[in-house]
């Protein structure tokens, strides 16, 4: 009898048979958010920030004192960062001034320069739209903090009541869902937020030191791409080349960017991966690329950024919905866990 066998974080089930189920769960997550974003952007921001904060709050230590201290610290940090960046953000991702694309160039250099300028303009437009959609007002942030705090305070009684109302035959399943759903999502949100913060911050700093025209936008793209395993940072680094000053500087800045990228990647690996590897559901690089490209085809750059996190969220939801069996916690192959 196996009574002390660890429950796996992700049940090792057949992957191919669950693609449709995953797509359905992903659609179930995406559609309400999409409708909300289109119909009422302020409500979307409130919902998104409340979910994010609630996820972070579920990873706070269970000791009441430490929980309160860390929660207060998080609130202060968020409010300070918001106040600090709110006036600066529009300037940081503003369009490049006209004429900055070296008009004296001829031939291929002029063509490359025109393409770079067009790409840069497109990316900056996307960044501006994105920040307009996601960046919350102080009131929204305060309300989200309040709601997340309330939800965190109400979680134990809510948990008790939901468990009590479960029918006998669904007791174990309900207990599993109530334990796993906040735990998996909380750890995943915390870990991906830390990864995005670290990689986005280092990339913005590196591109600023290299003299890129819009290091804040480059950092924003890296932060958005960091949750996409392996391919995301590569894609964001590629996009950042559009922010190189001009074709003359491009080779030098690209070389510098390669070094900064290596440093960023290494820093994320050395500082975060050993601690955070388990919160990311295993998804092969091939599938990740396929989903990301499908996202890109459907919704452009934004689609690329959200495809892999969406699938990760769907896999977490799928794992929380299905009970594991003792067979599913036999050691999986080393390839099943991939780091980026």
């Amino acid at each position, binding site marked *: *009898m*196996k*009574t*002390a*066998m*660890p*429950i796996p974080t992700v049940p090792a089930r057949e992957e191919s048979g669950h693609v449709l189920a995953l797509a359905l769960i992903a659609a179930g997550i995406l559609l309400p958010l999409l409708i909300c974003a289109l119909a009422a952007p302020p409500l979307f921001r409130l919902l998104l920030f409340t979910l994010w904060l609630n996820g972070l709050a579920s990873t706070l*230590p*269970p*000791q*009441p004192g430490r929980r309160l201290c860390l929660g207060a610290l998080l609130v202060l940090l968020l409010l300070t960062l918001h106040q600090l960046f709110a006036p600066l953000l529009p300037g940081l991702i503003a369009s490049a001034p006209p004429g900055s694309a070296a008009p004296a160039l001829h031939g291929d250099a002029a063509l490359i320069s025109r393409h770079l300028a067009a790409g840069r303009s497109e990316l900056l437009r996307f960044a501006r739209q994105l920040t307009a959609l996601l960046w919350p007002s102080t009131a929204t942030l305060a309300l989200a903090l309040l709601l997340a705090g309330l939800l965190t305070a109400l979680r*134990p009684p809510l*948990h*008790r009541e939901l*468990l*009590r*109302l*479960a*029918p*006998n*035959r669904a*007791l*174990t399943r309900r*207990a*599993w869902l*109530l*334990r796993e759903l906040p735990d998996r999502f909380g750890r995943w949100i915390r870990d991906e937020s830390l990864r995005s913060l670290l990689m986005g911050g280092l990339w913005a700093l590196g591109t600023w030191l290299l003299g890129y025209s819009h290091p804040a936008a480059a950092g924003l793209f890296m932060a958005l791409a960091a949750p996409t395993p392996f391919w995301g940072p590569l894609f964001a680094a590629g996009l950042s080349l559009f922010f190189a000053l001009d074709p003359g500087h491009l080779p030098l800045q690209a070389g510098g960017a390669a070094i900064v990228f290596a440093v960023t990647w290494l820093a994320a690996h050395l500082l975060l991966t050993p601690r955070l590897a388990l919160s990311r559901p295993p998804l092969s690089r091939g599938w990740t690329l396929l989903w990301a490209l499908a996202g890109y085809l459907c919704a452009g750059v934004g689609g690329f950024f959200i495809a892999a996190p969406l699938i990760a969220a769907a896999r977490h939801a799928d794992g929380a919905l299905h*009970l*594991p*069996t*003792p067979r599913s916690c036999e050691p999986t192959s080393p390839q099943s866990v991939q780091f980026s």
Partner: protein
Amino acid sequence: MERTNNKPEKEAGQPCRPEEIEYLHALNRLTPAGRKRLLTWLHVRTYAADEPLFRQGEPALCLFFLLSGSLALEADSRTGRPDRLKIVAPGQACGSAALAGDAFYGESCLALEPSRVAVLPQTAFHQLLAGQPAIAAALLQGLLEETLDDWRQALRTYSGLTDHLTRANIIV
């Protein structure tokens, strides 16, 4: 056996009253304040005869205290007929694997007659362990005592059986 099944068909849990957990062996070491704290996390369920509480191989997420009725712990066997390991009497606990960390139930548990149980979710134990470790430790001690009693009884039975077989010259 005592029968207190007012509504055996009602499946959702009911709030637990303090007098219901007074005679639970595993809670012997808890202070009245500790019991009161634990009570907020407990709820009472009624199971019909032959209804399973949990099955072997399911993740162990709830600890059950039998208030009335009787339960059987059974393990799957190769013969296809489950081996009955123990009959749980009122006042005893089952499903202690829920407090052993991430684990699976090592046996199935089913009600032999209409039975009432108090359910303690694993989350409650983790919260107690973090916030009020004294209560969690007292609960663990109580469960350990109960497990040791079971173990001694099993040894006694086994030893008696061995003696009997030795005397009958089946084992030399």
